[in-house]
């Protein structure tokens, strides 16, 4: 049973001019194995900082993170990451990109090959195995990034706006794919997004964060991710609770933005 515990994390950046920015303040969160959490918030609420701390790229100024009881002190293969874009290695083919993690671990090449073939099948890229990644479209590249992350069999998958740069149609297809992979692999997933719809559709749990200092504002438990596993996402959107929750969150974020604007004008 893998459990990710975020224990009272604070993050303060000291600026060169002597002042400091409180990017995160007293953020606590427990994530059970197989949970899918989406994190939403206006820009500057520290959601990417939170993800970078969980990934181990940043050390928090206070608090700690444990995965299965082990303290997180740096990046490691148990916490896989999918970036918005540009994190694929252009000098490798699609197959080499996906097989990167196992290769670095020195895994059996034949087993890796089978695993890569299977994953590329799952994400629908089996015809593009030997292509260079720069020959693929943006949506295909993100599918490679997903497959590459899964090939490494991490306990937790961290997604930093992975679909942010895609067009609306591709994005919808990718959302279905993320749900399908979540259900099939049973991975714990944290997904950062600035799209309210995406957060609703993909979040079994949804965290709304507030800025200055970055903190957890409200948490939801939502049924849409489970519904979306078998249903068309457009059908899920017709759910009455979907529309009301969407409105609620939108006005919440709207208020936060207003508050920031007001503070800046004062």
């Amino acid at each position, binding site marked *: 049973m893998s459990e990710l515990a975020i224990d009272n994390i604070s993050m303060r950046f000291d600026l060169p001019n002597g002042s400091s920015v409180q990017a995160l303040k007293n953020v606590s969160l427990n994530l059970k194995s197989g949970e899918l959490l989406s994190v939403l918030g206006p820009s500057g609420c520290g959601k990417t900082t939170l993800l970078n701390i969980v*990934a*181990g*790229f940043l050390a928090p100024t206070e608090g700690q993170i444990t995965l299965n009881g082990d303290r997180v002190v*740096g*990046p*490691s*293969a148990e*916490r*896989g*990451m999918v*970036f*918005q874009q*540009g*994190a*694929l*290695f*252009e*000098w490798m083919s699609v197959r080499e990109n996906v097989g*990167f*993690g196992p290769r*670095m*671990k020195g895994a059996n090449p034949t087993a890796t090959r089978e695993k890569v073939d299977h994953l590329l099948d799952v994400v629908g890229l089996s015809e593009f195995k030997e292509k*260079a990644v*720069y020959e693929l479209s943006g949506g295909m590249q993100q599918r490679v990034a997903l497959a*590459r*992350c899964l090939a*490494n069999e*991490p306990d937790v998958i*961290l997604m930093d706006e992975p679909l942010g740069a895609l067009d609306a149609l591709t994005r919808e297809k990718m959302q279905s794919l993320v749900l399908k992979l979540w259900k099939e692999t049973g991975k714990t997933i944290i997904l950062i997004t600035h799209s309210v719809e995406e957060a609703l559709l993909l979040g079994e749990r949804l965290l709304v964060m507030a800025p200055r200092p970055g903190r957890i504002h409200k948490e939801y438990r939502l049924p849409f991710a489970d519904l979306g596993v078998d249903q068309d996402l457009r059908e899920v959107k017709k759910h009455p609770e979907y529309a009301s929750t969407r409105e609620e969150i939108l006005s919440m974020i709207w208020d936060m933005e207003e508050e920031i604007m007001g503070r800046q004008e004062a």
Partner: protein
Amino acid sequence: MTGLIILAVYIAIFVVSAFVLKLIVSQRQDYTSLKTVTFGDESAVTSNGTASVISIVTIFLIWGSFTGSSWLPSILHAPAPFVGETSFDYTLEDANGVTDTATVTVRVMDFGEKTEKFQVDPGEGMAKDDAVSMQASRSVTILFDKNDEATRKEGAKVVAINGTPISNDAPLTLDVGRFALTDKGAISFSAPRGLQMDPIYLPPPEDVWKRGIEIATEGYRNFYLHEHLAYSLFRVIAGFILGCVVGIPLGYAMGLNGWFRGWFDPIVEVMRPVPPLALIPLIIIWFGIGESGKVILLFLASLWIMAIGARSGVSGVKITKIHAAYSLGASKWQIMRHVIIPNSLPEIFTAARVAMGVCWGTVVAAELVAASQGAGMMIMAASKFTLTDIVVMGIILIGVIGFGIDMLMRWAERILVPWKGRG
């Protein structure tokens, strides 16, 4: 004057061929041809291959034409200087005002032929006939009074050429040629010069070709042509490889470590703007004019370029790629090997192309200063003996080899780093 005519001919060929080609070549029907905005759209401008071919042909055409090349039919030749035998009469007036006329026979020798003294029958009268030999396109001072009965010392002077009056302030241009009187009263004569160049200034292309063959088969200054070029290339490649071996790791270290960057930044940034040519004197003082000095010079020429290229290649790696590699479980060494190095290759190739160009230019310059073999030395030695054909051949070969090196580097770049600019 000739220069202006050549320029005019060149511009005329440029303009006329553009118009003629537009008329005879049908417009391509592709996507670009349907664009209505082409002026200012860089992507609509493609290098016209026909223009490149005509451009090169034009250079050889003009070269051949103005040097009277035997490769061109003589109808395309620029007017040649007068060659052969000609003559004119001069009228001498002695101190007492008595005049007499005598004939000067002039033999104008072609470029490259030697002048030879010859005799004519002096004839009768106070002024006697003279015989002069001269070279095409030059002028000759005719001391007409050596055999005359009245000399310039005694007050005699030339008053007319072929019946046309001449004086110190009024030179003459007749069909025979140009005449002027020197300060001391001698006749300065030049036969019609035409527009062709003396091979001493510019030899015709076939002479350059023949000289090339000659040096390739018989050698020049104890070395065959390919040996001269091989020496230059060897120096470039040795210096360049040394520069890469030291410069690339140095650049990586500067990109990855603050102490290295702080330590070497001032050195690299100060040495980078120093042209390698400015180091030649110091290199000669330290290492002499031998092979090691040249290789060290080229090493220094490429070192800074490669170091800066490698440094910016490392700095240019996107942090998301590094983060991705770490969270996929790669170690530092694996990240170096599989992410940082391949990510920096495009920048390193760009630097390598620049460095090879600089090295090739520098080796020629270094050989101009001091060397016993090499392309630059060949040119320099030849120029001391006005062997213009070797100089021209050397310049062409240096240009062609430099171009060839760059093409080779570009080809290698396409094969080895196909992801360049696609990140």
